[in-house]
């Protein structure tokens, strides 16, 4: 247990500790530097920052007490679920409190009769589906990290996943949350039924990356498991053909549960890592999943096969049984990690483009990569135009990090100029805050800040994320945006 006299603590953080000492058990307050270092980054390891204090919360009331103490002492706080985020959204604030939510992991209710589940924020995404499976239901948002990521993190980031093409994102599946506001008040947003009266504050809080408060309970929609699922794998000799097949499928009025694309480099990496048995020599593969009533899936399957062949698929196969289906998905879902085996370092991008620009944007990325001598592996959600270019580099080689960083920025610019977005599901976090002014005007960003000022006038909730240089609440609109890095305390860049 840290003491007030602990000279290593800043006075305001020591005051937070003093306030919490009566409400939290010994051991819940972590000030040991080595222990704190465990939390210095999330899934994006290139930004690191050690928090002044970490608090291991084990109840909603404790979360409220921590936030209230931070509010009283004006100490910034950051909530962290499983720490799998890829945009640095859970990067700690060096002068602030890191609120660890992972012990709040009770599944409070699985109610198939209402198609609802009531969950603690630290519950693991996949656990929801496992808990509901016996009754024939599942939780639709399925980010690739679903075996470890938390529902609270999904809420903060508005997580997607391969199947959001058909089923939507986290925001479409959250009915209600209990929120601790940055001022330390507990408030329920939404109801178990849709369309709660008043402003749709829930719709703004989901995806606000922890900048509008901390969720302590989450009520989600459960979806009835489909009668039939067919997972298909199609191999193509060119990326253009795979892209054309994707457009043809969507254009035929079919909404597959998922259409994922991987290029040759990504296939090579996945093959080496998990032996997923993708077609030899493919320049691109599509993983297509159809689900729904058996009659409907049977029809769609025939149509998809025909469209893939018309677009020169040289191999087309359907998973015959569950193990084969799992293997096809394993290749896709392990792609990021697999790339780590063929390159010491890589940057994952998350830009979105209108689907119709896919082939053209991929060609531009290839050209940019060629020009800068940096390799790019492409793994992405082709159905909704959400790219995940993996920019490969070796940080130990002089200049390579800069080349990779520059290429990443150029790829985001491509997404913006083609009418897309800098992030489809990973969030802006600390990583892409500097790109926000390229996508939005000062007026757009200032208008978003109005919401921030309503929730968090003292700017304590996850400061420095999403917005590069937010104006202070009550301040006149700014006239100039600088390119300065966001205020995060002492952040080390790796």
């Amino acid at each position, binding site marked *: 247990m840290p003491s007030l006299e602990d000279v290593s603590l800043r006075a305001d953080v020591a005051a937070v500790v003093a306030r919490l000492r009566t409400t939290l058990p010994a051991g819940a307050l972590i000030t040991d530097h080595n222990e704190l270092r465990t939390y210095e980054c999330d899934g994006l390891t290139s930004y690191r920052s050690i928090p002044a204090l970490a608090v291991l919360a084990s109840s909603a009331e404790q979360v409220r007490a921590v936030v209230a103490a931070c509010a009283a002492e004006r100490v910034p706080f950051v909530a962290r679920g499983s720490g799998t985020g890829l945009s640095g959204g859970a990067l700690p604030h060096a002068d602030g409190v890191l609120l660890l939510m992972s012990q709040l992991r009770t599944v409070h209710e699985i109610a198939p009769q*209402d198609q*609802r589940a009531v969950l603690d924020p630290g519950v693991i995404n996949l656990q929801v589906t496992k808990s509901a499976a016996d009754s024939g239901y599942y939780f639709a948002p399925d980010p690739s990290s679903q075996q470890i990521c938390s529902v609270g993190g999904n809420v903060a980031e508005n997580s997607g996943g391969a199947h959001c093409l058909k089923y939507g994102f986290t925001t479409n599946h959250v009915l209600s949350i209990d929120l601790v506001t940055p001022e330390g008040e507990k408030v329920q947003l939404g109801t178990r039924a849709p369309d709660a009266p008043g402003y749709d504050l829930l719709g703004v809080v989901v995806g606000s990356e922890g900048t509008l408060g901390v969720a302590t309970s989450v009520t989600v929609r459960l979806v009835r498991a489909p009668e039939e699922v067919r997972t298909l794998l199609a191999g193509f000799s060119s990326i253009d053909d795979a892209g054309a097949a994707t457009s043809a499928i969507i254009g035929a009025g079919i909404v597959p549960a998922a259409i994922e694309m991987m290029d040759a480099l990504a296939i090579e990496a996945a093959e080496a890592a998990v032996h997923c048995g993708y077609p030899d020599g493919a320049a691109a593969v599509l993983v297509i999943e159809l689900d729904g009533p058996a009659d409907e899936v049977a029809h769609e399957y025939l149509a998809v096969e025909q469209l893939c062949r018309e677009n020169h698929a040289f191999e087309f196969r359907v998973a015959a049984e569950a193990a084969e289906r799992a293997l096809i998905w394993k290749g896709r879902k392990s792609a990021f990690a697999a790339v780590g085996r063929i390159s010491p370092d890589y940057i994952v991008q998350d830009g*979105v483009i209108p689907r119709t620009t896919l082939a053209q944007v991929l060609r531009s990325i290839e050209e940019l990569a060629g020009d800068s001598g940096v390799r790019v592996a492409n793994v992405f959600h082709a159905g*909704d135009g959400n790219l995940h270019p993996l920019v490969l580099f070796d940080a130990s080689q002089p200049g390579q990090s800069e080349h990779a960083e520059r290429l990443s920025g150029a790829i985001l610019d491509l997404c913006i100029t083609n009418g897309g*977005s800098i992030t489809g599901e990973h969030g802006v976090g600390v990583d892409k805050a500097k790109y926000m002014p390229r996508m939005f005007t000062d007026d757009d960003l200032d*208008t978003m800040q109005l919401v921030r000022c309503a929730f968090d006038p003292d700017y304590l909730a996850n400061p420095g994320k*999403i917005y590069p240089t937010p104006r202070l609440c009550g301040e006149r609109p700014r006239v100039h945006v600088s390119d300065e890095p966001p205020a995060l305390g002492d952040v080390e860049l790796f």
Partner: protein
Amino acid sequence: MAIHDDLAGACSHLRGAGPGDAVDGVDPQWVVSPSTTAETAEVMRICARHDLAVVTRGHGTKLSWGRPPTRVDIILETTRMNQVVEHVAGDLVVVAQAGLRITDLEEHLGRADQHLSLDQPAAGATLGGTVATATSGPRRMGTGSVRDLIIGITMVRADGVVAKAGGKVVKNVAGYDLAKLLTGSFGTLAVITQVAFRLHHRPLSSRWVHRSVTDVQAARATVARVLHSQVAPVALEVDWPLDGPGRVAVLIEGAPAGIDERAHGVAALLGGDTETADDGPPWRAVYPWTADEVALKLTTQLSSVPDLLSDARRHGVAVRGSAGTGVLYGALPGDVDAGTAGKAVTALRNACVATGGSLTVLDAPADLKAGLDLWGEVHGLALMHQVKDQFDPGHRLSPGRFVGGI
């Protein structure tokens, strides 16, 4: 005349208000109809300078919903902003101006065999009005409601600043989702001038399968069988009039080859004597009330929908709506006395709240509305006031029409 001249300078489509322009009994002075976002911004800057209260209006199909405004100087009419800005069929996305009628949009999209998967319970409604009131219909079960389909928004703030959020791609988590914030905000936060929506293909074929049910027990069993089946219904609707049998209807869509097989399956699930047709029963996607009745929106958890049907009938409220999502609409005769109306609203609201939902009085004859609590307890109301104060510190946008006097 300074105000008039300033307004006329900002927008040539300006006229003095007439009796038909009253907002729920409150008379404005002018009606201004800008054609662009920029013109709207200019009008709003003038309204800010002269402290004028503004109510935004499309075709006025839901203008009397909510409380009467505490004051109105200007009706800002969006109907001249009625253009499709961009429709890239291959992306299944449309960007359109807020004053465009949904029916006109549908005509445009139909040429590409696409549609905005929202029903139109209020005939003639514009996109902006539909967003501002968050009105959805039966298809929300399959493809979501307004908040699920909107992907981008352009607004003019009370101070005349133009801002946008979201974009024109379906998947996008950059920045706060202000499109959702404005969805259902009844014109109290900003003027919506342009919206972007995710689209769907028109179904290759569709079937409505429906049957009558004589009592709540039958309705409960029928609804539950469909709800927990794997037939993937796009809509599951129920109609429960004040007396006589109710009806349950199911919409499925898909490939023509399998649709009849699937419809047979749905009929078997429904049980009893079913009817199957390409078009839905006449009552679906139509509000149950007439102009002089009390219009209610009732929500509840799915398993409690049948209980709500019987509660509603007991309190003299005819209901219909989405048993597949737990969102129903109710009509209470407008000739009941204030005490009876108040009791029915309170009792049904208690029933909704106890089962995870809410009851909103959308509209009512003026004498009844004045005595009714339209929303009940609203969670997060303090935060809502703070949001309103940030967006509209002068409280000039539809003042008093929304929850908590917002």
